């Protein structure tokens, strides 16, 4: 039993944190909002240089061959800066889906390019309604009628849908299966889709933890400086408790995130429950953070000029993506209310 991350994992997290915080400033994000694609090729190559685009690509294909557990800490850092790039999607969904589906031609063809930052694959599941970053994808992998297809973006119709979070690029995608390569159907497809959904759900859950932490950090700093009635508003107990309520809930969502990543890597039977648990907990705390942090900012928090809304709006958006609350509650219920459920002390691991 060892529930700790390794020194290497923590050091990697730290270096990624430092890189992202210095690179992905609120100013850069606002700048990308003004661009057509909302994405930066330069940023993507920087991420590739750090090995991040290929972090879960097997070493044989030029990646770092790391696991969900290795990446879950980094996903939190991606959330911390509200990264405007499909890194979590790539590492947690696209690459694992390719690997799981085991189509050698696809693997040899795409994985090296992904690791090199020369290609992006966007995955679209029906659960999600929309496909993230389809407009910059070199390949689409789409679910239709229970089957999975590899689709050439040129042969698909993309309809952009603007999100409250201007950094999120969503597309309704239509395509003709006859013109696409079927990758899997039946039971195999169901398994691949479930795994992809779990990867995506854990990815946004981990990002949500980072978002909550960022909102708390911004707010602690603001309330320590902002004065009313002659004192810093951070000295008011109501303000302190708004922050403390986020902080302690956040603490209790981190270990479940690590456990869910571990469950994915080890294909544990309880993986669906584990992922749904952290998706619910992380999105709940991120949305509590949004609510309490705008409150302690007062009117300032209601403006476009203060950076808080960059992170707040993504927290709102994540609440219902990669499975809404109803979907994840049902998966927890399926586990907890099963006639043979192993509940109680001693049944966690």
């Amino acid at each position, binding site marked *: 039993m060892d529930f700790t991350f390794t020194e290497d994992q923590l050091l990697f997290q730290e270096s990624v944190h430092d890189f992202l915080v210095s690179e992905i400033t609120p100013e850069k994000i606002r700048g990308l909002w003004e661009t057509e694609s909302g994405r930066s090729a330069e940023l993507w190559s920087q991420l590739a240089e750090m090995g991040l685009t290929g972090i879960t690509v097997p070493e044989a294909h030029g990646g770092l061959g790391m696991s969900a557990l290795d990446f879950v800490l980094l996903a939190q850092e991606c959330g911390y800066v509200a990264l405007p790039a499909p890194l979590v999607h790539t590492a947690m969904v696209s690459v694992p889906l390719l690997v799981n589906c085991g189509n050698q031609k696809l693997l040899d063809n795409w994985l090296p390019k992904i690791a090199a930052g020369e290609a992006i694959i966007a995955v679209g599941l029906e*659960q*999600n*309604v*929309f496909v993230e970053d389809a407009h910059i994808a070199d390949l689409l992998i789409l679910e239709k009628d229970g089957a999975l297809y590899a689709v050439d973006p040129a042969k698909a119709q993309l*309809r*952009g*849908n*603007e*999100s*409250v*979070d201007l950094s*999120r690029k*969503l597309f*309704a995608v239509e395509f003709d299966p006859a013109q696409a390569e079927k990758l899997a159907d039946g039971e195999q497809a169901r398994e691949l889709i479930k795994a992809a959904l779990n990867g995506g759900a854990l990815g946004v859950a981990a990002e949500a933890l980072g978002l909550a932490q960022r909102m708390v950090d911004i707010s602690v700093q603001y309330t320590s400086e902002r*004065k*009313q*009635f002659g004192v810093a508003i951070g000295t*008011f107990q*109501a*303000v302190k408790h708004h922050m403390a309520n986020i902080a302690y809930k956040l603490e209790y969502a981190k270990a479940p995130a690590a456990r869910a990543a571990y469950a994915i890597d080890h294909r544990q039977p309880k993986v669906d429950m584990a992922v749904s648990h952290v998706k619910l907990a992380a999105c709940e705390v991120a949305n509590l953070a949004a*609510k309490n942090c*705008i*409150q302690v900012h*007062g*009117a300032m*928090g*209601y*403006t*476009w*000029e203060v950076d808080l*809304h960059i992170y707040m709006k993504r927290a*709102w*958006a994540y*609440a*219902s*993506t990669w499975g*809404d*609350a*109803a*979907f994840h*509650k*049902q998966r927890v219920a399926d586990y907890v209310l099963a006639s043979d459920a192993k509940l109680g002390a001693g049944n966690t691991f």
Partner: protein
Amino acid sequence: MQLEYSKEHQAFREEIRSWLAANVPAQPLKTFDTEEGFQQHREWEVKLYEGRWGMITWPEEMGGRGADLIQWLIFEEEYYAARAPLRVNQNGIFLLGPTLMEYGTEEQKKKFLNGMATGKDIWCQGWSEPNAGSDMAAIRAKAELSEDGTHYIINGQKTWSTRAVWADWCFGMFRTDPESQRHHGLTFILLPLDLEGITVRPIPQLDGLPGFAEIFFDNVKVPVENRLGGEGEGWGVAMATAGFERGLMLRSPARFQETAKRLVELYQENRDSADRDPAIREAVLRAYMDAEAYTLTTYQTACRLIKGGKIGAESSTNKIFWSELDQQMHATALSILGARAELQPHAPDAAGVGTWLDGWMFAQSGPIYAGTNEIQRNIIAERMLGMPRK
């Protein structure tokens, strides 16, 4: 106790209902946080005035109908039920208007009330300052009386002035006694925004639109005639206005009842998907009950006031209640909408998501403005329950 409407009230309801049916624009106006929408709403104010529906609680001689609070509530019910446009001039008609009638000179009433009523002059507030938000008594913007005593020279900054970007006039509080502390030495002044030395800087809100603004004053000359109430008596005048702001006029229950109704409809339309999450039905029923409770309580307060009662901590309890209800209802709507809740209204696949996202963003301001809910809770504890201040 008698919980039915009188014949007169029923007739009044019929009258406003049919007028609204005939006059409410078929197409919703653009938001008045845009220049075009602002102009559309200004025209709507004119139309209301022409129908004598602009400020029904004003006395008849001032273009109103001398409506009592029950008529006001009925008017609002029909107004929201008809989905009529928001009131771009609410600061003037509901906040400054009554204050002017109470504290204004005959000249001031003549000069300002009509322009306000006709929609010619749209008013904004100049109260908050960068370091005087919840703590309004910390106001620093100063007004110095000129040596000849004919005008004030105003310097300083105001902020969070709602709809100030395209407004014509501003009413605000300024420190006339530089030696004074807190709520002493403040004076209530009315001024046109096109005066020399005034700069209005729009502040974009969560949706990116300039819903409010900062106002900078650089040696702005304002004639003393524009002072409302006595010099140094601004706090008392302002408190009357604040009483209105947090009181009945601006937060009549109709708005929240209609939101609750739309929420029930949204739930019914999406029943199959919504019932996958038991928390949603729970929240929908709560929304209905809370909107109902807010309505009943408001009517009870109104009846008490009509009988000569005074408004007490209601201004604080209702601020908390409606603002949390509004957030709760919109949050519930977003969970019903699920994966499409994040879509902006103009997105191609946004059919059916309605204006819930905009409403949700707007609802974020409820617990903040006009005294944060934390301040309101302090007030309830100290003034209503008598808990020790220090």
